[in-house]
């Protein structure tokens, strides 16, 4: 039986990303374990069971250990972990939320992350995204589920200066979005 090689969907774009200047840096993030949590209501019990306060403010994310917790809806969150295997994370979270009436589903294969860094990040994103990404309203801890160049994405703000954003996109759209981002960044690659 042929051996299946585990490859990153954006492996073929790595060289193109490396040629970009620091003002519009794009890098594919490595795979992380992700679990979709449905739970309502949340409170002290869920915080104690999960070891993290699920953010209840819409369009926010909080760090959780090595990973993140992203608000996806009033009763839905995305938990990520860089240290646990997907099945470990799913089992741990499911054990925690099941007694509270919640559910946890491994969605690690659904999305991959692209990290955008540099002074021109907001200009690049503005070409295909109508959300106000000014750090005044989209500082660290903000997130947004929206469309970027026709692809559904989750944006996570990592800095208060608007120059560090993670874009979570469906794996099957990653190549399209990578091409779109490279094209959007083209005019900024000649900045002196």
């Amino acid at each position, binding site marked *: 039986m042929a051996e299946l090689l585990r490859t990153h969907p954006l492996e073929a774009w790595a060289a193109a990303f490396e040629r970009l200047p620091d003002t519009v840096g794009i890098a594919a993030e490595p795979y992380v374990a992700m679990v979709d949590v449905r739970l309502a209501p949340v409170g002290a019990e869920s915080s104690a069971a999960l070891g993290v306060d699920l953010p209840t403010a*819409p369009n926010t994310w909080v760090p959780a250990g090595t990973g993140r917790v992203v608000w996806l*809806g*009033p009763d839905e969150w995305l938990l990520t972990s860089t240290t646990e295997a997907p099945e470990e994370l799913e089992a741990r979270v499911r054990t925690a939320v099941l007694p509270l009436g919640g559910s946890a589903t491994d969605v690690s294969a659904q999305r991959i992350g692209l990290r955008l860094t540099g002074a021109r990040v907001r200009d690049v994103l503005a070409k295909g995204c*109508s*959300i106000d990404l000014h750090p005044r309203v989209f500082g660290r801890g903000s997130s*947004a*589920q*929206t*469309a970027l160049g026709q692809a*559904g994405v989750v944006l996570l703000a990592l800095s208060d200066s608007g120059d560090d954003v993670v874009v979570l996109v469906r794996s099957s759209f990653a190549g399209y979005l990578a091409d779109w981002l490279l094209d959007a960044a083209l005019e900024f690659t000649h900045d002196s």
Partner: protein
Amino acid sequence: MQLIACPWCGPREEVEFSYGGQAHVPYPDSPAELSDEEWAHYVFFRDNTKGRFAERWNHNAGCRRWFNAIRDTTTYRFESVYRLDDPKPVTP
């Protein structure tokens, strides 16, 4: 493009939303007792209001939650949005 204020996510572009038809159409109390005609009225018959109309909308590209909105069908202007468990606002 018109912005629609999602009750959860705030103002977003119209393309992020999808239409869900008339709001506040109650499911029949005892569906088994309805005649075919009454069932057809429940399934297919909707108001065709000119003016303020209570509608269901879904924020597809965002939080994927359903909500209700009062929209003026002549101007396409959204007058208010409210969550599904909120009562229908009184409109003039």
